[in-house]
């Protein structure tokens, strides 16, 4: 099972003919991901790594069953590319671009909601269900198939934590990078709901950071709706107020944005708190998972 993607997921890559798109597509293919089509405007009719390329998503969906799209598209073109995927009726879209304008994100989120597409990102390395399907740019060797669901705002932090889990023999069901905000297609709460319903996921690791109120909303959801155990690591404990810490959404504006406030809300909801990656396998073991 896992969530969002598994061994049966058929993938379309937007921007497949570019240097990064082509390179990462090959790595995903080698991992076992079923990449069935690519799209680059003006490059239709070519092949990349044996994958047929189309000018438009509409052309690709006319010839292939597609479950998910992965976009290697720069931020300034992200809105148009996303609307095209949504319009083609593809149910899952991963938006990797960093720096998508806020108004564009609102348009994407609203159009996706109206048409039934789930959007992951922006500013995300993507997601991976280890051993089944990789729709992302995570380093392969930090991943291990297993039963712990991981969700993270930060890509690199999820690599760090998966590395620690994997070194301790703790595998992952699905690793979801929701992105750096400040607007998110998929919230922590939505991912938690999916993990709660996934029979293969036995425990969840939530990796959060300063800024906004999403962790508080996740805490409220956990305390009311979840019986699976959650371990959380919130970074930015030493971050000053009012400074943007690399991610568009990682800025402390008011008490709720601080790491301390988020840690308190999660702890009050029964979440086990880790302060460094090395503590996460210990918390998981304590749970007997």
């Amino acid at each position, binding site marked *: 099972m896992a969530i969002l993607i598994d061994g049966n997921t058929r993938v379309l890559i937007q921007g497949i003919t570019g240097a*990064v798109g082509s390179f990462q597509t090959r790595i995903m293919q080698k991992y076992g991901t079923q990449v069935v089509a690519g799209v680059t405007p003006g490059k239709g009719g070519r092949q990349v790594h044996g994958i047929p390329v189309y000018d438009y998503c509409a052309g690709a969906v006319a010839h292939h069953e597609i479950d998910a799209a992965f976009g290697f598209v720069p931020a300034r073109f992200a809105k148009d590319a996303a609307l095209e995927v949504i319009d083609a009726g593809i149910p899952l879209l991963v938006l990797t671009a960093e720096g998508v304008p806020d108004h564009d994100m609102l348009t994407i989120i609203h159009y996706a909601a109206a048409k039934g597409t789930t959007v992951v990102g922006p500013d995300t390395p993507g997601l991976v269900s280890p051993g089944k399907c990789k729709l992302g740019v995570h380093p392969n060797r930090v991943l291990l198939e297993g039963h712990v669901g991981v969700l993270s705002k930060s890509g690199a*932090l999820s*690599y760090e934590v998966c*590395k620690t889990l994997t070194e301790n023999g703790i595998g992952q069901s699905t690793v979801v990078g929701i992105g750096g905000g400040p607007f998110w297609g998929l919230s922590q709460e939505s991912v938690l709901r999916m993990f709660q319903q996934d029979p293969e996921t036995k425990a969840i690791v939530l990796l959060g950071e300063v800024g906004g109120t999403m962790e508080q909303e996740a805490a409220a959801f956990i305390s009311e709706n979840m019986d699976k155990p959650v371990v959380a690591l919130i970074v930015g404990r*030493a971050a000053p107020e009012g*400074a943007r810490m690399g991610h568009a959404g990682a800025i402390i504006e*008011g008490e709720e944005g601080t790491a301390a406030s988020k840690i308190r809300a999660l702890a009050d909801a029964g979440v086990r708190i880790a302060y460094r990656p090395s503590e996460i396998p210990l918390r998981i073991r304590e749970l007997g998972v």
Partner: protein
Amino acid sequence: MRLLEFQAKRLLAEQGIPVPESRLLRSPSDVSGIPLPAVLKAQVPIGGRGKAGGIRLAADQNEAAAIVKDLIGSEIRGYPVRAILAEAQTEIKREIYLAVLLDKRANQPMVMASAAGGIDIEQVAEQAPEQIVIRHIDPFIGVPAYTIRCLAQALGLDGVGGFGALLSRMYSLLGSHDATLVEINPLAETTNGLVALDAKVVLDDKAAFRHADLFASLSEEQEQLASRGRGADPGGAQQLAAERGITFVPLDGDIAMIADGAGTGMLTVDLIQDAGGRAANFCEMGGHSNAEVMCQAIEVVLANPRTAALLISLIGGMTRMDEMANGVVQYLEHNELHLPVVVRMYGTQAEIGRATLRDVGIDTFENLPEAVERVVALAGEQVPWPY
């Protein structure tokens, strides 16, 4: 980009929203011909100007010149005053709060309004939240007429002309200029209708590519007329980072830090603190880095003279570690190191990268906590700044 008051009001006026007649002053000699009696307002990028003495009244030109002389060069809440907006004093019947913004919780634009205008809206939110009215706006529909009627009633503006047009214009400014906030506080009800007495507009930097000329001219104006807060940028590191497009946040410790991700960068700063050290900065290169960026990032963080050691914290996704090591070597070819450097390196081509660094005598670690402990110990052995 947070606009200065006069810039925000210029945008409002361009949309047809009424603002007081005004002039921008740089020195006492600029006062001839200003509207009188005048309100003189220091143009600094921070709230609470009034309480800090940044807003004064002048009955005539002489009084205005004296106030300008007094204010120019003074500091308001840490910001030196370099320009003053002189506005015609307005007869006010009452003051209202009105803002349109992007709501991060609801993923929607929203209108926020209160009949309790003129004061800090956060204070109202805390003490009398029932006085704030919020209406979310569907981005595909815009502001419907019934929402305007409903807000007018809540604000006691039934029958006051111009409210609907004003709100619609604020909303269209939000979209057309990629603003994330358009706030009028106070919005004054006067005998001549509604007037925007103060305004705050924040534009989305991520959308600068759509408004290149506008962003360039606004930035240039801000550089001339407003200045950063004092003492915040030792060695000009922040300025250098801004020029190179590298994320850099100055902190108050002595361990310089560079990471290849925002989350791991924050984690590294936290772990330095847990180990008894203090980071001198937060610096992040992003996930698609190369040798050139690595070299530039070292130049940025070491421009700050208050550094006793450097920790480079890398866990590549797309970034190649051999490239990162080459970036460090590139820095060493042109600079002499005056402090110890510790590198945490893991990920694609890490073996090659670590070998390259070993050859130039730099400690590398595969695990982050070990690297942090090492750099905190090394920083502790250094002679504290100033030397």
